[in-house]
């Protein structure tokens, strides 16, 4: 694999007037947002407010019915979907690890492009997420927190420029939650990743996010700095 997993990114992501509707239902309505390298943008709202649906529009897992997303100024529709998803990584609430060992999971993304991660690169990435020595461990025996860290490392193995995080700690205990939060803060800061964090937990948004978009029924009802939107 060329390059290193800790390459510094300077990319930014911008969405303009994003909407998604399915027959009889508007899920996301005219949402615009922007997130820069090294910044964590929070998407906050109650369950069913359209947070996860909005996130899925950013890496084109779903197609917006209106609006578009720009990655470094390029319309995402001009970027081949597989390349776009390599550049915009995603960590979901459930890690959905592939059966096998931890190394196999980390190597999955690069392997899709015909690249092979060396053992040293796997070890370095695992060290970064606090799982040094876990490469040969079967994913089925990992704890929830460990699985989520493998999921994060698996996304980072693709060397993304933007990282989408969909409620990554909502199924974890307090200790695991703190560890994941620390990791997200670290990768955003150290690797200059632009992160978009979906969370229903306002305290978590206060701890992690630089700016917040508050979503209600698919509409962005408020956006600004975390302090402006959520208060102290």
């Amino acid at each position, binding site marked *: 694999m060329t390059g290193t997993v800790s390459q510094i990114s300077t990319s930014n992501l911008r969405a303009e007037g994003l909407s998604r509707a399915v027959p009889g239902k508007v899920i996301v309505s005219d949402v615009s947002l922007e997130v820069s390298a090294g910044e964590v943008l929070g998407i906050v709202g109650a369950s069913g407010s359209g947070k996860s649906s909005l996130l899925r529009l950013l890496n084109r897992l779903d197609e917006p019915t209106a609006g578009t997303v720009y990655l470094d100024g390029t319309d995402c529709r001009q970027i081949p979907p597989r390349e776009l*998803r390599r550049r915009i990584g995603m960590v979901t609430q459930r890690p959905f690890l592939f059966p096998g060992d931890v190394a196999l999971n980390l190597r*999955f993304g690069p392997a899709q492009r015909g690249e092979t991660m060396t053992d040293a690169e796997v070890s370095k990435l695992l060290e970064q997420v606090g799982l040094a020595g876990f490469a040969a461990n079967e994913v089925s025996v990992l704890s929830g927190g460990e699985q989520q860290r493998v999921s994060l490392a698996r996304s980072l193995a693709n060397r993304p420029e933007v990282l989408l995080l969909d409620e990554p700690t909502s199924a974890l205990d307090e200790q695991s939650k703190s560890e994941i939060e620390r990791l997200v803060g670290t990768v955003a800061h150290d690797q200059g990743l632009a992160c978009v964090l979906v969370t229903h937990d306002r305290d978590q948004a206060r701890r992690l996010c630089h700016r917040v978009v508050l979503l209600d029924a698919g509409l962005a009802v408020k956006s600004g700095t975390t302090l402006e939107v959520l208060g102290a």
Partner: protein
Amino acid sequence: MLKSLFTSEISLGLAQAGIASLLALAVVFLARRRNIHLEKDASIALLRGIVQIVAVGSVLAMLLKAPRWSSVFLLTGMVLAAGSISAKRAKNIPGAAKVSTYSIAVGAGLVTAIMTWAGVIDTAITSLIPVGSMIIANAMNTNGLALNRFRSEVLAHTGEIETALALGATPQATIGRYAESSIHSSLIPAIDNLRSLGIVWIPGLMTGMLLSGAKPMYAAIYQFVVIAMILASSGLTSLLSTTMIQGHAFSPADQLLLKGTE
């Protein structure tokens, strides 16, 4: 007992059909007592079944005098109907009817054509239509099973599939194992039919041949030939439909279209 009550073959046949239907309805009644409601589906299916098969019998009676090439039209009609029926097992998959019809046409058509060319199936309408319909019907069942299993597998593994897509995988890479599992499952009945042939069941065709005076050994071997043809056509149909439906499960932007509600 019935034979002593009815003098004409048609009256006797209808009486026999009535008794068989009553038995089926008794099972429906038993199921209802366990809150399993099959009344509507079973009644419609029984009614459709008798009407359709009597209609086919009438058509066959007319076709006995028709030229041999006319069986092609009847078999084509069967393929179109089979494609439409089978596609209903693939709800929410765009293009399922087209995929089903094409797969059954190629799977059943190719095997029937080769075996007819080789002289295994006689070109007489009385031979080609019954054997061809058996091949088409089994291809239809296999296709329905394959698509139904594919749909269930994809719906049960949406998270895994979209995770792989989000990591930059191709749709084929994310869904391949579920397609393989669908092909395997859909062929279980055809393989089990071959395994159990002569031990658990003696199929209708062999019975019919024996009743019409064929030598038991030839009837037995010919029955094997038919079941093997069914496996070949079902396998080809399943392979084709599962391969083709994978393309319909994703958008051109590699987005999974086959999902639950949003």
